């Protein structure tokens, strides 16, 4: 074991393998990252497999049920429309009499898809405009910065409400609205990274070798300054899901029957004294997914943080 380590250090050419080993070491050291990794992998897996696990047609299969449960002096839950958690329905049924577990499995891909779309779009916009602002400097930089200022001054949820009001309640509008809330952070993050990266000697060397501006920027500087953005993107998957579910919870979902975590909770909100599981389980799912991606992002940050290396 120690001999192979010595060899790799001595050769010096396998620094990438060293980095990976170091990353794995940090991963093992921080059990919370592993929890985050596990939760986010399971989330992504469920998102992909969802249509095979649960028949999507079940979302339209609504019926009312009459059932009371857990009647004792302390808790008397039960409502005339939904069934309590039990053997038949592990998490009970929702306000439309649909199995809540099935609905949550159907809802996860909806939220995860929006989150991934938002984060990827914001990432691309951030890279293009952030790199341009930092590298061009001068008036272009100033204009891009001032525009991000404008968007950062509006509370995100209010801007999203206006977008949904103007362009109608669809998931496309919702996604675009959240991208518009999110992109300024990425632009500013990449801009500051590029600004510090630009001053490094290798950039000067490239310039001396006669490499073009665009080539230096997008082939060399951007790949070197992208890690903080990837961390931010991982952290933001959770935040985007929180924002989406908050918007659908307050009633801005495209349809009442649509399985989406915030919408499921919203439909259950009216009955939370009789059937608290209708809001507890969808909310708990959001909490877990968000926590998972946050833990993962936090761990990746530690791994890429040069101050923590060796």
């Amino acid at each position: 074991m120690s001999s192979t380590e010595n060899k790799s250090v001595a050769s010096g050419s396998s620094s990438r393998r060293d980095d990976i080993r170091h990353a794995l070491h940090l991963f093992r050291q921080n059990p919370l990252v592993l929890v985050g990794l596990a939760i986010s992998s399971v989330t992504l897996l469920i998102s992909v497999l969802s249509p095979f696990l649960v028949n999507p047609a079940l979302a339209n299969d609504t019926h009312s049920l009459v059932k009371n449960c857990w009647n004792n002096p302390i808790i008397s839950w039960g409502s005339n429309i939904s069934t309590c958690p039990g053997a038949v329905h592990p998490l009970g049924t929702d306000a439309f009499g649909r199995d809540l577990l099935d609905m949550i499995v159907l809802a996860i891909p909806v939220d995860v898809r929006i989150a991934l779309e938002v984060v990827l779009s914001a990432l691309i916009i951030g890279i293009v405009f952030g790199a341009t602002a930092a590298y061009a400097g001068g008036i272009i930089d100033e204009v891009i910065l001032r525009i991000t200022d404008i968007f950062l001054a509006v509370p995100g949820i209010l801007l999203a409400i206006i977008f949904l009001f103007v362009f109608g309640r669809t998931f496309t509008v919702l996604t675009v609205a959240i991208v518009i809330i999110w992109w300024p952070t990425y632009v500013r993050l990449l801009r500051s990274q590029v600004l510090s990266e630009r001053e490094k000697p290798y950039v000067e060397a490239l310039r001396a070798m006669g490499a073009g501006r665009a080539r230096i920027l997008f082939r060399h500087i951007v790949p070197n300054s992208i890690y903080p953005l990837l961390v931010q993107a991982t952290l933001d998957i959770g935040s985007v899901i929180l924002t989406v579910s908050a918007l659908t919870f307050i009633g801005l979902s495209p349809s009442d029957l649509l399985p989406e975590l915030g919408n499921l909770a919203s439909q259950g909100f009216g009955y939370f004294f009789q059937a608290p599981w209708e809001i507890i389980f969808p909310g708990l799912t959001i909490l877990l997914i968000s926590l998972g991606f946050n833990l993962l992002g936090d761990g990746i940050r530690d791994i890429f943080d040069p101050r923590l290396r060796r």
Partner: protein
Amino acid sequence: MVFVLFGLSLMIFLLLRAAIPPTFALAPYITPRMTGPQKLILAQSLGVATQSCPSFTAFSSLQPSCLVPVWDQYGAWLHSVLTGNWGYTLLPGLQAGLTTLAVFGERFPYTAQLAIMGAILTIAIGIPLGVVSATHNNKLPDHISRIISLGGYSIPQFWFGSVLLILLALDLRVGGLGLLPTSGALATDCAICFPNPGTIHTITGSPILDGILNGNFGYGWDSFVAYILPAVTLSITTLGALTRIVRSSMLEVLKQDYILLARSKGLSERVVVYRHALKNALLPAVTVAGLITASLFGGVVVIEIVFNLPGVGSTSLGAFNVDDVNFIELYVLVTAAIIVVTNLVVDIVYAKLDPRIRY
């Protein structure tokens, strides 16, 4: 700052004028008794209909000769915004002829009360949590504080609020205390609980402040109690950002040479941490705390709905449902102005506190 406000007004204007028919913009200004020609004159004075428009029906059927290009509407729009000409409210259940501005003015103090209580709680919990986290780096208190801040960061506001309400309902069923109310801006029904409920004069509009200013402390206390759960929900979900900043800036400061000097002088750990390090570490926290407070004004929509509070956040959703454009517009512009002004104030305060910064 002026540029940001201008750009923002332009964006809101374009969204709410260019993308939806001009009849939406006119609706809040029409009163039931108006005749067609009067409506047309109104539309022309607001800059949404052309002078050559033949009749109001032609305008409302969107005839091309009646439509003013969007760019030409901006001046008139800005004029009504700045002169407070926001028209009448379209919200149901309110007395007719009430202006949007009056409704906003009446409900905004409730939102301000919630945002400020939430901010105070966030600062009161977030800063000590960050300090403890830094002084006990990678030990148990640090882990606990990280879990609280990361957990709070990941909790849906509506879920945390609802769980608090469900727990409270259980408590009521057991016949427990049941002290905290589950909805409304006041904990109890005023007629029963106050010695003389008639003495409340509206001064600020916020029940807590009005109670204190009127000397009717029961009334103020009652509203304070009603806002405890909403404020806790608000602060739990926002304190992560503050804790993280305080922790990292405290860790940074504790590495500085002057801390080493203070320690080598033989000063106690308490004095080093709280007299030397904390003051310097709090500088970045001032910025973040200011911005968090400002953003809370726009971030209370979900909490106001869960706890059924009569603030502008929950009202703007009602406005959404009845196509009351002006109320939403007013809310967005006011919160944005609060954020921009706070930004400026925070910059000035920061420069005053940190002599190294000179503009």
